[in-house]
Each structure stands twice: as structure tokens, then as C-alpha cells.
């Protein structure tokens, strides 16, 4: 059983909160969810919609048909009716509008209930949730609990006041529409405790678990909720969260903190990242670890702030002037987001260079259920690896003379693996500098040919070391023998997986290479994966097929068949299937 519930209404009237509550209700009742929000870049006015796909099993993609559409205004109905079927239920208020189409009508007197109970317009949401729960066969208790969680701070009276709207909606269905009641949300007897996580929340949890101690950001959709989440936790976690004056200050605050020895990260979207890239190059030459969370949205320039795209991959891979190593990772879902975030902080420290974690609006702002036990195990087994960054207390001083004279530490010592030891500034007996100019082993500026060449090669050797020790090949899903093979990266993962499932039901077997470790690529091992007798399809949420260009450049693979989407909306399962 898999169904889609969708709610829509005017922006500024609580649609987002309501949608998330529905996701949590489904999760608490033992189901798994994937959700997706649509909203304009406005605070008020315009149309907001929130859809939740619910199932007994893991949900990796949205579903075409909407099974329950909750219309808080007439626009919602017209905008989304093309996804309704004759079996779909439409919850709406006859006082607001009416329709003649052949869907199952559920008239919910929202206005009347609000007037009778002396409520505010925003409480229509609560009525709608109560009604939704009733028609899906769930018990009201879980919603009442969530309302209590939300309003507990304001006192019992406020809790009760809000709960009565949920009850009114619930009762309305029980009384008048008992024939339409489904058993989609009957509480599961056996259920795992699950977290309802957005991609941004997954990054935030990963950052905390990785012992990131400073996060700097300037608000930019769709990355901003990382800033909000980490800021709201700072008293508990002890992380410092700085909302700086601009993205240039953001990354340079992080680089300063990282220089001084603490794990640091920044988060932004394409435009903010554009402001950061000079400093990314600084991190490259000065060998300063930093994790950059890049949540893409459609560009160029201001683009479409609240929609989705994978249009900044080439920009991320080639970001920063000059030649220096950087590592680009892209998680495909919430679990991979946590795992790769944990890894990103280790890689940044081990290779003393920038690591970019690439997300997009679809992954960053959509929620998915993740088993709590899985998370608990993952973080319990996570080891912080700082590579050659040495804490002062662990540093065995070679300086016998430390009280008399400080020594210039060789911060950029030439090594076989390209990585040099770093002691934390403040370590007694030494000093050194990290330098944005080309430098000698001791950090001092140089323009001499020989040390320049040696330092360039040392830095680039870190890539070789990474490919040997930490690079991972794409994961393969599906049938090894299939002639049709998809190639994708990042957030398109779940959509391709669902398309594979649907195709298999039709008797079409497919394979799928999903890349997490996007750059650098191990040319030899990656090129061995691709065979002449297969038909490859590149699936990307952009217009150029950007990862395809990387494959062409790095391993000479020219994937001619491309499934691309660049209208600001995510790739769909049907969009893939119809091309096969």
C-alpha cells in the first residue's frame, strides 16, 4: 500500500507546518514517508503545497497520482487536479468553491467550524489534519499528542483550544463520510522508531556528530534551514553558529577557525558559493580543511530560489582559481547525507583541503523517514579521523629549547602522500604560517621555481592518496546482466530506483550506477565499469548533463542518451520510464 496525501493553500497560512505534521503522524503510526514542498519565493500570497507519499515500505520517489487532496483554497484544486483519479478523495469546503469533476468529494465545512469554535483562519490546517486522519483510518490520538508537543509551552488551555479543531475535523468525517473511510493509516502493531528528516536536517545531524564546532552561513534558500537548525542547537551542542555579513565573511570565518584547529563548515546555495570560491582556492593552497554544504537551486544568478536543480556540479568541481585538490561528494538521500557528511569532515581533515557536499532543494527540503536505530548505530561507531592534524597535548615536542626560543614548524613539509603535519596554533615552542601565496616548507612566501613545483605536486598528490584510500566507486543497483543501465548522482537516486522497480514489473530489467564520490574520479576503476554492449542513460536534473561531461572528460565515456529536467521540478519516475 502506497498513497499520496497532498495539501495546498495560500502561502503564509501554515501549509508547511501542516505537511510536516502529516509526515510525522504517518511515521509515528509505523509508516515510511517521502515528502516534497512547493512554494514561491514569497512570505505571503502565492500558492503553497506539500505532498507526502506514505507506504509500508521505504519510499524513494513521489507518486504520480494524488489519492487525497486537501484544498484549503480553490487554486489548490485547479493546480493539482490533473493528478487526481476517479478514486481520489478531495477534501474541500463547499462554502469556498465547488466542482463537478468525477472525484470523490468530501465536503469539509472549514469556515463554519472556525466560526463556531471562534478560531483563526490558520486553524483550518488542524481541522484538515483531523479530517485526513479520520478518512485514512487513523486514530486521533497521535495528532492530539503532536499538537500537545507543539503548544505545551503555552499552557494546557492553548493545547486544548487547538486540539478541538483536530477533533472537529475528525468527527465531521466519522459522522458524514464513514463510507469513504480507508484503512491506509491504521496504526501498525510492529513499528520501528523513525526520524522524519529533511536533507538539511540530515546534514545538520551529521555535522554535530562529526564534531563540527563552527558553522558559518548567510541565509540562502534552500540551505538556510541548516543555519536555523544548528543555531537552535548551539546551547546544547556547544557549536558556534555565525550568521556573518556575507558569504565571503562566512567562509573566511570558517577558515580562520579551522586554521586555529576546530572542525568548521559553511552552507550556502549557488550564488553564495560563487562569492566563496576565491576563498576556497585560499583553503586549497593554504591547506585549510573546510566542509562546504552546497544546496543547489536553479540558477543562473537569482534563478528560481525555491525550486530544484542539479545545475552547479561543474561549478563545484571546478570552483576556485588555480590548481588545487578538492573533493566533491553528493548524497542520494537522507541516510547517505548523514554518512557522507560524517565522511566529509574526516576527509577535509585528512587531506587538509576543501570538501564540498552537494545537495539540492529536492533533497535539502524534502523529508524522509530514517530508522532511529540505524542513526544511533552509525554515530556510535563513527571515528573522528583528523589525519596529520595534531592536538597540542598529543604533540611530542622536538624543541628541547622551547622556553628559550621558538622554532619555525615545517607546516608544508614535502611528503610522499602529499599531506603535511599540522600542529594546532598555540602549541608551545613553535610557530608557523599558513599562506595564500606560494610558499616554502616553512610557510614563507616564495617565487622560486623549484619549491613552487614541489608544493604544487605535493598538494596534487593528496588526490592520489585520496583515490587510493577513500574514493568509492558508484553503487550498483538492479540487474548485472541488464542491457539498459542508468547513470546518475545525488538526489535522483530514489527516483531512478523507483523507475527500475516499475520497469521490472513490466519485465524490463535495468542496472543503475549511482555516484556519491563525484570528484576526483579514479579513471581506471571507473572506466572498467562501462561496457560497449550496454545502453546507458544519463539521468540528471539539469540541462547540460553535467556529470556526463565529467565522465567524458575523465574516462572518455560519451553517454548520448540523456534524461534531463531543468524546469525547476524534480525528475519523475514516469519521465524516466517513458524514455526506455
Amino acid at each position, binding site marked *: 500500500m502506497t498513497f499520496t496525501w497532498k495539501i495546498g493553500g495560500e502561502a503564509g497560512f501554515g501549509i508547511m507546518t501542516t505537511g510536516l505534521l502529516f509526515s510525522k503522524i504517518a511515521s509515528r503510526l509505523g509508516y515510511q514517508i517521502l515528502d516534497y514542498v512547493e512554494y514561491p519565493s514569497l512570505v505571503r500570497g502565492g500558492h503553497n503545497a506539500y505532498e507526502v507519499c506514505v507506504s509500508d515500505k521505504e519510499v524513494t520517489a513521489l507518486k504520480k497520482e494524488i489519492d487525497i487532496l486537501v484544498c484549503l483554497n480553490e487554486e489548490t484544486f485547479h493546480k493539482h487536479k490533473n493528478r487526481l483519479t476517479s478514486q481520489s478523495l478531495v477534501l474541500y469546503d463547499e462554502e469556498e468553491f465547488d466542482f463537478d469533476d468525477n472525484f470523490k468529494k468530501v465536503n469539509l465545512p472549514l469556515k463554519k467550524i472556525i466560526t463556531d469554535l471562534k478560531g483563526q483562519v490558520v486553524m483550518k490546517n488542524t481541522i484538515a489534519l483531523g479530517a485526513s486522519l479520520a478518512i485514512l483510518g487513523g486514530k486521533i490520538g497521535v495528532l492530539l499528542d503532536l499538537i500537545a508537543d507543539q503548544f505545551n509551552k503555552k499552557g494546557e488551555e492553548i493545547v486544548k483550544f487547538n486540539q478541538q479543531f483536530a477533533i472537529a475535523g475528525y468527527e465531521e468525517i466519522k459522522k458524514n463520510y464513514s463510507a469513504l473511510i480507508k484503512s491506509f493509516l491504521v496504526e501498525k502493531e510492529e513499528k520501528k522508531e523513525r*526520524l522524519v528528516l529533511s536533507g538539511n536536517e540530515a546534514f545538520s545531524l551529521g555535522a554535530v556528530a562529526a564534531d563540527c564546532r563552527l558553522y558559518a552561513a548567510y541565509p540562502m534558500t534552500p540551505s538556510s534551514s541548516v543555519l536555523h537548525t544548528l543555531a537552535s542547537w548551539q546551547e*546544547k551542542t556547544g557549536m558556534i553558529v555565525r550568521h556573518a*555579513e556575507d558569504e565571503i565573511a562566512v567562509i573566511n570565518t570558517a577558515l580562520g577557525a*579551522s*586554521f586555529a584547529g576546530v572542525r568548521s563548515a559553511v552552507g550556502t546555495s549557488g550564488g553564495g558559493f560563487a562569492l566563496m570560491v576565491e576563498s576556497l582556492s585560499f583553503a586549497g593552497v593554504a591547506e585549510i580543511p573546510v566542509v562546504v554544504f552546497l544546496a543547489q537551486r536553479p540558477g543562473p544568478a537569482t534563478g528560481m530560489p525555491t525550486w530544484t536543480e542539479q545545475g552547479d556540479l561543474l561549478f563545484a568541481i571546478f570552483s576556485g582559481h588555480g590548481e588545487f585538490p578538492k573533493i566533491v561528494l553528493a548524497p542520494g538521500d537522507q541516510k547517505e547525507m548523514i554518512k557522507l557528511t560524517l565522511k566529509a569532515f574526516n576527509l577535509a581533515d585528512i587531506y587538509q583541503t576543501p570538501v564540498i557536499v552537494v545537495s539540492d532543494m529536492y533533497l535539502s527540503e524534502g523529508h524522509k523517514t530514517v530508522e532511529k536505530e540505524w542513526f544511533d548505530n552509525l554515530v556510535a561507531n563513527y571515528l573522528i579521523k583528523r589525519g596529520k592534524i595534531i592536538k597540542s597535548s598529543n604533540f611530542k615536542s622536538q624543541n628541547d629549547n622551547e622556553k628559550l626560543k621558538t622554532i619555525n614548524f615545517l607546516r608544508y613539509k614535502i611528503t610522499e602522500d602529499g599531506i603535511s603535519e599540522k600542529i594546532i*596554533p598555540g602549541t608551545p615552542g613553535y*610557530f608557523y*604560517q599558513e599562506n*595564500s601565496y606560494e610558499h616554502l616548507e616553512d610557510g614563507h612566501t616564495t617565487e622560486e621555481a623549484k619549491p613552487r613545483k614541489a608544493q604544487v605536486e605535493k598538494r596534487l598528490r593528496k588526490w592520489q592518496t585520496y583515490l587510493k584510500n577513500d574514493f568509492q566507486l558508484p553503487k550498483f543497483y538492479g540487474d548485472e546482466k541488464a542491457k539498459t543501465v542508468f547513470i546518475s548522482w545525488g538526489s535522483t537516486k530514489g527516483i531512478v530506483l523507483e523507475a527500475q522497480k516499475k520497469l521490472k514489473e513490466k519485465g524490463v530489467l535495468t542496472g543503475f550506477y549511482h555516484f556519491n564520490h563525484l570528484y576526483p574520479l579514479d579513471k581506471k576503476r571507473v572506466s572498467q565499469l562501462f561496457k560497449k554492449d550496454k545502453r546507458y542513460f544519463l539521468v540528471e536534473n539539469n540541462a547540460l548533463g553535467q556529470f556526463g561531461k565529467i565522465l567524458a572528460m575523465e574516462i572518455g565515456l560519451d553517454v548520448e542518451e540523456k534524461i534531463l529536467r531543468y524546469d525547476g521540478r524534480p525528475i519523475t519516475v514516469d519521465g524516466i520510464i517513458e524514455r526506455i
Partner: protein
Amino acid sequence: MASIQDFTGYQPTWCPGCGDWGIGMAIKKALVDLNYSPDQVAVVFGIGCSGNMNDFLNAYGLHSLHGRALPNAIGIKLANHNLPVLAVVGDGDCYGEGGNHLIHASRGNHDITVIVHDNRVYGLTTGQSAPTAPKGYRSKSTPLGLIEVPVNPLALALTAGATFVAQGFAGDLNHLVLILKEAITHKGFSLVNILQPCVTFNKVNTYQYYLKRVYKLDKDYQRDNFKLALEKALEVNEEKFPLGVIYQVKRPCYHESLPQLSSFPLVEKKRFLKYDELIKEFI
């Protein structure tokens, strides 16, 4: 105890007679006088002749990008507030390319000491006009004369909320050392604007020019008087240059206002492990 020699790195490449020599020496002398050694100080350098001090001053140094030394310094201070953090920058660096950072570092009262080499000209790039150059100034980039009026760094920092604003002169080393010691010791954001002749590219604002126009603030000057400080800051419009601490008040610094840092520096923090407290909100 460390000596000037301990802080002395490579032989400077500054032009003979450049004001940077005096500033470089004053910084070292101030650090020695304050009983620091090179392993106890963090210094961020901008890009310019001033920033080239990176190779001449021994410390835990970060030679940053043009304009970005201030956010780097803020990051260092947040990570380890036990380290005194200095930013050695130029006028183009701090008042041009990085002007935005000066405003916000002042507002935040971040506990860093910003030492600006103000020679009214871009030296390293061979003599274009700086943001502090006077209107009408002719340079390679403004052959018809500068159209803009100059930035007033002292007034800018004052109105942006800096808690310590001072002006020194590269030609008066002893006095400059006194100012720098106060600036480094000051708890909060400190700006020291240093008037500095560029002997190669600025033929107007020479040692002689400044010697005729600088004067030291009286011993009984009220440094906590904001209006008076603004008056002093505006004297540059009459080509008068007060030297000394123009303004100083107490206000909690940024890092002191963070509960996260109440017991130990961030770099010594223990790893947070109580994830259950965070994930409640996701259930």
C-alpha cells in the same frame, strides 16, 4: 621572556624609508613588552605591502586573501579565545576590498586588533589611489583626479560600534608602541589606523607632511566621549591628525556573549554525544 629578535623573521623587502619598517618594529616591541612569545600570538595578514609582514614577523600566522583578514581573525578568536589575534592590513585591504568586514567586526565587538597601514595609496600594485586618498588625488588609476571623497576610517569604525579606535603615526615609533599595547590589551574590537608615508608612490603625504599636521591627544583627553571622538575623527577634513586613543569604552565582546565559550575555548571543547536530545524533534 621573548625578545624582539625572537619575533623577527626574514629580512623585510619594504622600500628603504617605508613606514612599514616603523610599524613592523612597533608591533614586535608591543608584543615583547606585553610578555608574549611567538607561539602565543596569532596574526592574520592581508595582501599588500603591509601583509608582506607575514615573512618578517614570527607568530602563528595566516597570510590571507586581499580584504579577508578580518573574518579570518574572527574565526581564530572564536576557535581559541585565549590567543591574542592581530590583523595586519592595509588601507585598500581593509577600507576598500574588505570594507564590509570592518563594519561588521566593529558591530560584533570581536576581540581582535586591526592594525591598518594607511598610506593613502596602493603600494604593491604600483601606486593607484587608495580609499583614504583625498578627492582630486592623481594616480595611475585616477589620472584626471580622484572623483570620490575619502573614506574616514576612524568615523566609520566609531559609528559601526568599535569599542577602541586609535590613530598612530609610523614616524613616531615609541608612541605607536604605546597605542598598540593598549589596543592588544583592550577587550573587544580595536582599530589602529596608522598614518604611514609611502616613499615610492605617494609624494604628497610624506613624513614632512604628517610631522607638520599630527598632534598627540592630551593626557586628560576623555576617551569614552563618543561625540568628542567623532569630532577628532573628522579633523582629517582640516588636515589635522590626532594621535592616540580617540575612543575606548567597555562592552562585552562577541565571544564573551556566547554561552558555548563560558568555560573553555572551542578548540578544547569535548565532543557532543547526547544525540537523543536533538532528534526528539524529528519523531
